[in-house]
Structure formats: C-alpha cells, structure tokens
C-alpha cells in the first residue's frame, strides 16, 4: 500500500480533484442506499394499508430525484478522479521523455529500447490504474462496505446483518485468490503468446528453409504445438475467469437464504417488518462490490508499485556525462587528442592507446583502419560521449569538458555511420538541426550532398515523407540526406563517420569536391574504409588496434608501403572484380 504514499506528491498537488471526487463518491453511496430504504417504507405502507396517493407520490418522486442526482454525481466524480489519473500518466510520460533527452549515449548502450519503451508505456499505464481505479476501489469499496453495514445494522437488525455476512469473507477470499491466479495466468498466457509470435516470425523468415527441406507438414505440427501451448495457457485463464460467477452465486445465494430464513423468524417475532427484509436483501447486493474491490485493489497495488519503482529508477538514472562545462566560445577550433589509454566503461580491453594527434583549423583529416581499430572512438571522445581521466581532447586549447554540451555540439556536425532519419518530410529531416532554415538553404545543402536530383524524382519532392510510413530510401540516399543535414548546420568542424560507404565512387568524388569548395577554412574529419575518400586529405592517420600506426599524406603513405599501400592495392583489385574484370 505504500505506493499511495509514494504517489503522495501527486495526490497533494491534485488534492482538489481527489477531495471533490471522494466527497461525491461518499454522497453517491449514501444516496444509493436510500433507495432500498424508500422501497422498504413503501412496502411497509402497503402491508399496513396506510399508503395514500400523496405518500406514494412523494416516494416515487423521491426515487426519481435520487436517480437523477446519483446519475449527475456519478458522472462528476468520474470526471474528477479519472482526469487526475490520466493527467498523471501524461506527466510521467513527459518526465520520462525529458529525462531521456538528457542521457548521454553511454546510457543508451546499457538500456535496450524495448525496456525503455516498456517503462513509458505499460508501467505508466499500471501507475495510472493505481491512481485512478486503485483509489476508486480502495475508497469506494471501503465507504460502500461501511455504509451498507451501518445501514443494515441500524435500520434493520444487527443480528440479521451478522448472520447474513457470514459467507462474505469467503467471497473476498475467493476474489483475491481468483484475481491473483488470473494475474499469474495472464502473464503466463502473454508469455506463451509471445512464444507463438516468435515461432511464426521464425517460420515466416525461414520460409526458404521450409521449402528447401520440404518441411511444410513438420512446420504445421511444430506451429500447432506452440499454438496449443498458448491456447492451454489462455484456457487456464478463461477457466479461472469463469470461477468468478459461481463464487458470487454461491456466497450470495447462501447469504440470501440465511437472511431470508432468519428474517422470516425475526418478522414472526415482530422484530422487523417485511419491508425491512426486502430492503435488507437489496442491501446485500451492494456488498458484492466492496468484496470485489478489495481483491482488485490488492492486484492493482502490486502491479502499480512494481511499475512505479521501475519508472523512478529510470528518472533517477544519472547521465554518464554531466553538463558541467561553462565555456561557450572557442578561441579557434584546433583539435588535439591526447590519449594515454582509453577503455569503454565496463570493458577490459583498451580501445585506444598512445594517441597524440593534432588537427589545425581548416585542415582535412582522414582516419582509416580496419573495423574495430578505434576510428569512431576518437570521434566519441571529441563529442564527449565518455569522460575518461587519461584521455583528453581539446578544442582551441581548452578541454571539451570545459564547454557546455550545447556549445560543444554546436561546433561539430557529425554524419554518423547509420544515417538515422526521422518520420518527417525530407526537408524537415535536412533541417533537423536548423528548423528555421529556408527552403533555399535546404536545397543548397542538398545540392552540396549531391542528393537533390534523387529528391526531386519523388512525386512530393522535398515534402516526401520518409520513415516507416513514407518512401523507402536506399542506403546511399539516406547517407546523402544525412550529409546535407550536417552541412546545413555550417559548423566549424564536420565529421563524416564512414558516411560515404553506400554511395558509388563517382558520387563520392562529387561530394568531396563540393565539400572542398564549401568548407574552405573549416575543419573536416573523414573516417572511412574506402581509401579514395581520403586521398586529398591534408593528413591521413592509420589506426590499428587502437594505436596510430601510420601517418602522412596519400603520396607519402603509398611510398611507405605499409598497411595503407597494401589496402590501396587490394581495393584496386576489388574494384576490378566488382566491375567484372
């Protein structure tokens, strides 16, 4: 139950809504209970032959007025209570999202997307249920229970009440047991269902195997095995669910029987009237809900606490990199890497060692080397994805840590390996970093990246939607849009992180010559596999296993006959094979 304490901040903040909803709930409960009382009075009047039309009308009109009042108040408390819980859900969602935007990339390496998503979806819903239905069943169940008992005891007979109540704890126990079993069974059924999904996924993606081995019949059998397990789990849930009605039936039936038998005896003794007995049996019906509410509340609280704990854990997570720099402007953008040894958090092996590398403002630096040699790690350090004691990168003579993250990122435009595009138009994707850019600026950037012709070939041109529901772009088109996006930002430093791998050699040549023209006096860093992309760089470094193995210009490296020269020959041969020679 301490989930209600933990959510106390929200209840206090929204106390008006909760107080009004609570008061309305209580009034509704009282009013609801007066209807059986009126019915009882009317019956007594009939039995005693004391009913006249005036009194009848007053009874009937009272019932009518009560019905309408109850309706209005029930409408109102729902609006107050659930608007509060809905709002909590949105608040939590927004908090989670905002927190996520503050987390450095290292955080995302540790948390899977699916897990983060689950917290922002299922967990938020579970907390919302606790703050809405949970409060309702807790409060209303309690109020109704107490009120009904009090009314039964005061207006009818306390002895009869006690006797009639005998089976009810049994019902509450039933509800709790069934509810818990249902919850467990439901989780099991969901797991089996996801097994089913996996199985079908596997079969559909492995359809060629099935055909090649002529295994259709076996596949059918395998599928049915998984499907049957899912069905059995579902069947268990359904069977448990079907227990609710008999449980209610038996306990209520017993209670009815006992109370009517005893009621008859009490009437015989002249202790109660027939009308009171009728009211009494109506009241008994009102006791089912509090019993149900109790079982439900326990389940909601259990789920809500676990979910809220996960959300809080996420909101309390600290970014591996703190935005504690103060510098906003750099004197110049000379870059200097000084890395004694760098290893990724949690990794044992060094990713970079003994690196001392300078790039003067306006230069072009080429970084080449095999996959995993540490090329991207150099860029991660420049962007301050990680802080490390024995790895320093400085811009304009000041450590990257001394800049605010915003100003650091404002100096550097990066085209990453995977050109990630958002679900938006092409123009919006290019203008991601500068939302206020004019269409002319956007087009100029696209032309520099040699992608305008591709874009204009789409029917909607720059307004073409990309992403899941939009057009499918080729890898090369995505890369070039990502390049245009970076160029539009017009930053003093541009990093192409293997960003030309999917474009052909002649397009690559075009883009590079555009860059040379457009970025005079500014720094460009090119990481690549294909050496043709760095041939004209002022400085080329070869990385191998995290160390600087060769450095020089294209000509000097070819003469040195090292890795670079061997790779150059290899790629020439590869080109020949690709073109069928």
């Amino acid at each position: 139950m301490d989930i209600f304490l933990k959510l106390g901040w929200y209840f206090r903040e929204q106390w008006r809504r909760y107080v009004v909803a609570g008061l309305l709930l209580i009034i509704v409960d009282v009013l609801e209970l007066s209807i059986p009382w009126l019915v009882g009075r009317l019956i007594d009047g009939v039995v005693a032959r004391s009913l006249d039309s005036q009194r009848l009308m007053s009874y009937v009109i009272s019932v009518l007025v009560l019905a309408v009042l109850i309706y209005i108040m029930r409408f109102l408390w729902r609006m107050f209570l659930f608007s509060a819980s809905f709002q909590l859900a949105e608040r939590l969602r927004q908090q989670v999202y905002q927190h996520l935007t503050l987390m450095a990339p290292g955080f995302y390496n540790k948390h899977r997307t699916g897990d983060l998503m689950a917290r922002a979806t299922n967990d938020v819903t579970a907390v919302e249920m606790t703050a809405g239905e949970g409060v309702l069943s807790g409060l209303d169940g309690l109020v109704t229970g107490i009120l009904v008992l009090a009314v039964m005891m005061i207006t009818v007979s306390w002895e009869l009440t006690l006797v009639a109540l005998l089976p009810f704890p049994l019902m509450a126990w039933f509800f709790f047991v069934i509810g818990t079993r249902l919850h467990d069974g439901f989780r099991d059924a969901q797991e089996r269902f996801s097994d089913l999904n996996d199985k079908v996924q596997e079969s559909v993606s492995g359809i060629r195997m099935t055909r090649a081995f002529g295994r259709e019949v076996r596949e059918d059998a395998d599928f049915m095995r998984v499907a049957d397990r899912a069905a059995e789990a579902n069947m268990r849930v359904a069977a448990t669910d079907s227990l609710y009605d008999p449980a209610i039936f038996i306990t209520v039936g017993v209670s009815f029987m006992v109370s009517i038998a005893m009621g008859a005896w009490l009437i015989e003794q002249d202790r109660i009237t027939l009308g009171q007995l009728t009211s009494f049996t109506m009241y008994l019906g009102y006791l089912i809900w509090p019993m149900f509410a109790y079982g439900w509340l326990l389940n909601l609280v259990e789920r809500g606490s676990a979910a809220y704990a996960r959300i809080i854990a996420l909101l309390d997570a600290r970014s591996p990199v703190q935005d504690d720099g103060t510098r906003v402007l750099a004197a110049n953008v000379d870059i200097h890497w000084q890395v004694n040894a760098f290893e990724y958090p949690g990794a044992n092996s060094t990713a970079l060692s003994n690196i001392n590398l300078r790039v003067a403002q306006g230069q072009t630096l080429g970084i080449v080397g095999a996959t995993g040699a540490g090329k991207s790690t150099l860029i991660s350090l420049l962007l301050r994805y990680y802080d490390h004691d024995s790895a320093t990168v400085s811009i304009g003579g000041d450590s990257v840590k001394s800049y605010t993250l915003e100003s650091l990122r404002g100096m550097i435009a990066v085209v990453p390996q995977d050109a990630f595009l958002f679900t938006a138009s092409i123009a919006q994707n290019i203008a991601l970093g500068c939302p206020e850019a004019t269409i002319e600026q956007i087009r100029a950037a696209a032309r520099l990246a040699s992608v305008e012709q591709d874009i204009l070939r789409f029917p909607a041109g720059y307004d073409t939607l990309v992403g899941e529901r939009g057009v499918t772009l080729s890898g090369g088109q995505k890369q070039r849009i990502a390049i245009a996006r970076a160029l539009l930002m017009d930053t003093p430093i541009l990093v192409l992180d293997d960003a030309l791998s999917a474009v052909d050699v002649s397009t690559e040549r075009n883009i590079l010559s555009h860059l040379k023209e457009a970025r005079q006096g500014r720094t460009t860093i090119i990481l690549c596999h294909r050496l043709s992309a760095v041939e004209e760089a002022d400085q080329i470094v070869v990385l191998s296993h995290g160390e600087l193995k060769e450095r020089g210009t294209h000509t000097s490296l070819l003469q040195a006959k090292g890795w670079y020269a061997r790779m150059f020959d290899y790629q020439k041969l590869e080109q020949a094979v690709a073109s069928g020679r």
Partner: protein
Amino acid sequence: MHQDDEIPQRLDRRSLRRLLRYALAYPRLLKQSAALLILGTLGQVMGPVLVKIFLDDYVTQSHYPLNDLLLLGCTYAALYGLSAWAGYWQAMRLNEIAFNVVRSLRAQVFSTVIRKPLSYFDHRPTGKLVSRITNDTEAIKDLFLHVLSTFVQGIVLMIAIFIAMAILDPRLMLVCLIIVPVMFMVMLTYQHLSAPRYHKARSILSQINATLSESVQGMRIIQLMNQQRRFNQDFVKTSQSHFAARMTNLKLDAMLLRPMPDLLGTLTLAGVLFYFGSLSMTTAVEIGVIYAFVNYLARITEPVLQMTQRLSMLQQAVVAGERVFEILDEGSQTQASANQQITNGHVEFSDVSFSYDGEHPVLRNISFSVEPGQFYAIVGHTGSGKSTLMSLLMRFYAPQTGQILLDGWQLHEIDQDSLRNQVGVVLQDPFITTGTVRDNICLGQDMTDEQIMRAAEQAQIHEFVMTLPLAYDTPMDERGANFSTGQRQLLSLARTLAHKPRILILDEATANIDSHTEAVIQSALMQLKGSTSIIAIAHRLSTITAADQILVLHQGEITQRGSHQQLLAHEGLYRNMYFLQQSRAV
C-alpha cells in the same frame, strides 16, 4: 500498437457470419452449452420467484409449516447450486468452442501462409504476416470467448427475466419492457459516438509510442543537433492532445456507459413502485411480486452494460476476420501430382533466364549440364546472380524462359518425395530444428542408429555428440545454441550424408567456419564425389579447387568456365577474384 487497425463504422455481416459458422463445427459442445445456459438462467430467474412464494404464501400469512419451508429452502439452495454449476460449465463449454475455433483457424492460416509462392513474401513485411497469424486470430478468439458469451448470456437472461415477470404480472412486465428499447438506443448511440473517438485516442497513443521509440533510437542525432528542447516540446504537445482525446472519451463513458443503465433501471423502478402503489390502494396485492420485480430490475441493466462494452471488441474481431479470410481466400501454391523419380542425378540448365520483376533480368541464358557424380562450382561477386540460380534449382521461383531438368525431367514433373530425398541441401545458415540431435540428423525419417552414427562419423561430429549428456538424445537448445557455428554446419552435413542424396546442393556452406571445419567438410565431400552430383555456390575459392567445372557468373551471365587450373591460367575475373582472396590476409 495496431497502427493499421482501421475500425470501420459498419460491421461486415458476411465476415461475421463466416466467423460464427466456425462454431458450427462443434454441434455437441454447442448443444451442451445451450442446455447448460438455459438451466443456469432458469436457476437465476427462479430464485426471486421462490422468495416471492415464501413471502406471499407464508410470511404475510404468518404461517410457517416446517416441512413446506424446508422444501422451499432446499429448492432454493438446489437452484442456486444448479445455476452456479451450470453457469460454470456453460462458460467452460464456450471456452472450449472458442479455443477449438481459434485452433483450427490458426492452423488454416499458418499452413496457407507457409505454402504460398515465395514471391508472396518478397513484398510483404514479415511483421504484418506474423500479425495476421497471431494478433488477428487472437482478436477472433475474443469474439468467441468474450463477445459471443456476453451477448448470448445477456439476451437469454433478459428474455428469461421478462418471461418470469410476465408470469408474475403481465401488465407490470409491460411497464418494465419500456426500458429495453431505450437501453438499446443508448447502447447504439454510445457505440456510434465512441468508436471514432476511441480510435482517435488510440492512434495518438501509438503516435506517442512511435515518437518515443524513434527518439530513443535517434537520441544521439537529436543531441548532436541540440534539438532536445524542440523534440521535448513536440512530445508534450502530442501528450497533451492524447489527454484531451482521452477526456472526450471519459466524458462519453461517464455519461452513457456505467451510470446510464443504472439511471434507466432506477427510473423503471420508480414506475414499478408507482404502478404497484396505486394498485395496492384499490385491490389486494402480493408483496412478493414487488420483491421479485425489484430484484429483476437490478439484474437487467448489467447485461446491457456488458454488451455495450463488448461492441468494440466485436468490431475488431470482425475486421481481423476479414483480413484472415483474405489470406485464406487467396489460397496457396497447389502442388500438382507428379510421379517421376530421380535415379541418376543428372542436372541440366538449358537456356535459363529469370527476372524478379519482369524488367531487370537477373539471370541470362544460363546453360550447363552436370553429369551424375560430377562436382560443379558456381562463383561470382555479390549480385552476380548465383543465389538466384540456387533459388531456381530449389524451386523457390520458376524461370521465365528455359528449363531446369533433373534426370531429364522438369522440376514440377518430379515426385515431391523423390525430390526431397534425392536432392540434399546444405545451406549457409545451417538449419536446426527443435528436438534431439538424432531428430536433426534423420529429420523425420526412419533410420537405424548405425546409419545415424555412420553419417555423424563421416561428418566428424560423432565424437562431439558423444560428449553431450544424452549423446544422440540430447535436446537442441533454441536455434542450436549448445553447438558452435562450425558444429552446426557439421551436423547439417551429417544429416545430408545420412540421407544419401543423388544430388547435393551446397550454398556457401563453408562461408562462416574455421579452416579445420572446412577441411572436414572438404574430405567428406570428396568421399561423395563420383556417386553424388554436387553443385556448390562458393565464396571461398580455396574450397572448390577440386571441382570438375567452375562457372564464373557476372551480372547474370556465365562469363568463364573451366577447371581451377584452366581458369587460373588466364587473365580474367576468376584469377582476379582468386588473388583478391589470397591478399585478404592483410
């Protein structure tokens, strides 16, 4: 997150009828369920009647004969017990029908889907197909499990209650009957108003979730571009519009859903009280009757409420049904009966051309002929068409022109079993099924232990298998995780060897394995040479130096052919490829 779940305003009655017909396959269960339903309902409805008898015949008369009362009490208890029992078993019978229907529907869709022509899968996202087989059938399950039972039980209960009312007092029953059309009108109004609004709220929610997942994946870019604030604002805006949409729904629910049937019930109660009270002033009335009516009125609103809540489920189930039927009605690839047998292992490609889209040719005029027992290798750069050639040989697609002949017969003329048994395939990604090591070798065929072990020895996996806890009876983990990649390759090879095919197709079988495993496979293959025709698609040229003939593909055409030595002697693609691989060591 069903983004493609468009909920139409109108129900497709044809699909609904077709779905319901599935339940007719279980007449016994249906009859039992109907009988139990009537019993259970009877029990429920009779309760207040018994109390009425008790009140009117005994309590008001102050007349309490013990035997009569005991009988009444026992009947009452028996009725309650009966209706609880009948209700439970009725629900269970309906559950059983639901699961049987979904089972047969799932089996139907699944086996239809996996028998569709392969081109069917080329343009359909896997996720969507999976969703048809799982999510849509799950929605149909809800139709039978929740919707059907709610409607049938609710309607039967209402009818029974009105019959009981009519027996007690027909005129009072008529007063109560007014509530029925009003409630159904409320129900339909609610459905009409809420369906589009619920849909809107749901689609905003899936937009929120899509944004969230996209932002998590693209957070690096958002941060690099310093756009956190803008994305945050956009998210808050969407979140607020979600709240607004939910509030609209809440208002509708609070107005029409839960409080409304209760209001109508209480209003009717007022009518009953008025009728009854005025009647009592002129004639003698039975108190028990009003007791029974008050009791019935309290029960009549609940079924309507439940039906209202199930309406959207009904719609989703019918939409899902439509999609599933579409798959079923398109049908699958029909396998014409063919009875030619493969006995020698001669493979011939005669002037074969193929294109996936009918525009861009992927293979052009391919002709070659593999004599029984020969070893042919096909090499080429990425995109040269060698995988397509393999797909044609495995009957995934049919060539547009030209013929592929095995022992002189066209592929579709050959008996399915013969094709399966006489053509062995070792694919790049070794195919591992669930079950034991033994199952993976014999793949559903009867084989002696000796045969299995011999094959395993040939593939040099026997020793490893013997180190496993249950040897050949050891179950395979998910996707063979208790075997290394190389061991899975060897297991797959053992399987092929055990089946002793006439023709063996190797698809880059040695692409991802260490040189030891490669040597093992090489020597196993050499044992087959002369008795089995082998066609290998190779990436590593070192594995095919012993081939009788090597075909070099480039852009869908055979540009070079000859033995390894012959090809190496000439300037050309093969020689360049060979040197390229030799220098990969750098």
